[in-house]
């Protein structure tokens, strides 16, 4: 129950942080910008392991739609979030990520539960999935692959930095 409360609060906080603060950061300068800070995927990444897959997908969809409403781009963030949630299930089960003794049933995908090296691997691969998918959908023209990669690269690094700072400062336990 505590976990649910914590996640609901996190949902609201991350949402506000993303749309009130980070959105302005990426659109604050005039003219062309290469990057964006995508912080909200952390919410989906921190959902507990025991979340059923379909629930995870639905949560990601709804959360993505909320972000989209604020970004005025219906469907773009939602599709990336759904993809992230889908990939999360696959990545978690990959051999090189599963700890030697397996996951504890009550564990959360956090630094405190599974350690910094595990979290870094988990975060880097899934955030990459999210960012790439997001920019593919945002640009929407496959032939502009260079633009997709360029935007993804800058956004990926910046988002990574923001998420790691958050994780190291607050060290959430669930």
């Amino acid at each position, binding site marked *: 129950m505590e976990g649910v409360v914590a996640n609901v609060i996190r949902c609201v906080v991350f949402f506000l942080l993303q749309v009130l603060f980070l959105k302005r950061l990426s659109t604050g300068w005039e003219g062309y910008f290469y990057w964006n800070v995508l912080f909200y995927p952390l919410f989906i990444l921190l959902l507990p392991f025991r979340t059923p897959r*379909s629930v995870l997908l639905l949560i990601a969809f709804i959360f993505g739609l909320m972000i989209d409403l604020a970004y005025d781009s219906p469907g773009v963030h939602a599709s990336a979030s759904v*993809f992230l949630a889908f990939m999360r299930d696959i990545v978690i089960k990959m051999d090189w990520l599963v700890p030697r003794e397996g996951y504890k049933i009550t564990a959360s995908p956090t630094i405190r539960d599974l350690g910094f090296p595990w979290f870094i691997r988990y975060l880097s691969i899934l955030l990459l999935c999210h960012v790439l998918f997001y920019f593919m*959908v945002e640009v*929407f023209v496959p032939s502009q692959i260079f633009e997709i990669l360029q935007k993804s690269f800058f956004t990926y690094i910046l988002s990574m930095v923001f998420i790691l700072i958050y994780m190291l400062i607050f060290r959430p336990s669930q």
Partner: protein
Amino acid sequence: MSNLLNAFSKLGGFALFLFLEVICFALIIRFNNYHQQVALSSANKYMGNLSETVDEFEDYLHLNEEVERLRAEVARLRAQEGNALYRDIDTTFASFDTLNQQFVFIDADVISKTFLGRKNFITLNRGRQHGVEPHMGVVDDQGIVGIVKSASAYHSRVMTIFHPDTKISAKLKGTGLFGSLVWDSDKEDYSHMYLKDIPTHHKPEIGDTILTSGYSILFPPDILIGEIDEISKKSGASSHDIRVKINNDLRAIRYAYAIKNLMKDDLSELEEE
């Protein structure tokens, strides 16, 4: 059983994922102007390509009719060219001249042809019903073909230029020189003919163009025949021996135009007198 359930739930997750992504993309394309435009324009592009391909395929189905139609059109247009017209100058009103139609073209399919021996004929699928009569010239789009020898109601037989009896009145382009073009039936060479009667004091050159002269009632003037590719002279002869490379390849001929000279009777009448 548990395996089955397991597989089903896995598949269920994937199905849900696909379902949600479909919704997302529907939203994206429906509500984002930019994405909508991209989607529409690429859809247009691919559907456009598809319908173009289908269209091309359909064109093939109608190709025969289309060729018929175009040939009729060519026949009509060739009849409007300058060399098919008779210029009638009315001397009473000095500045008026009227053009009378002199030649019309009848388009025809070649339905049989033989190029084996000395006497080569082809058969056309047009006959008296269509206006084809014996002693009419026959051309194709690249040169001359021959002379109609006989015509039945729906077919006609054409003596090609590769026949020992054929004699075509031909001229050198740009000069007034003309001679008769004949085929050397002993050589059985289906790409060359010989131009006789060009006197030796004229100096034609290799590569000069040979056209119909228009002095016979068979062909309008200035139809391309070929070009000179060899000039020789027998000692003591008063005319050149000119070998002409024929422009068209009659062995590959598929259709032809018979030429009807509307002033034929007029001219024959003159000759009879």
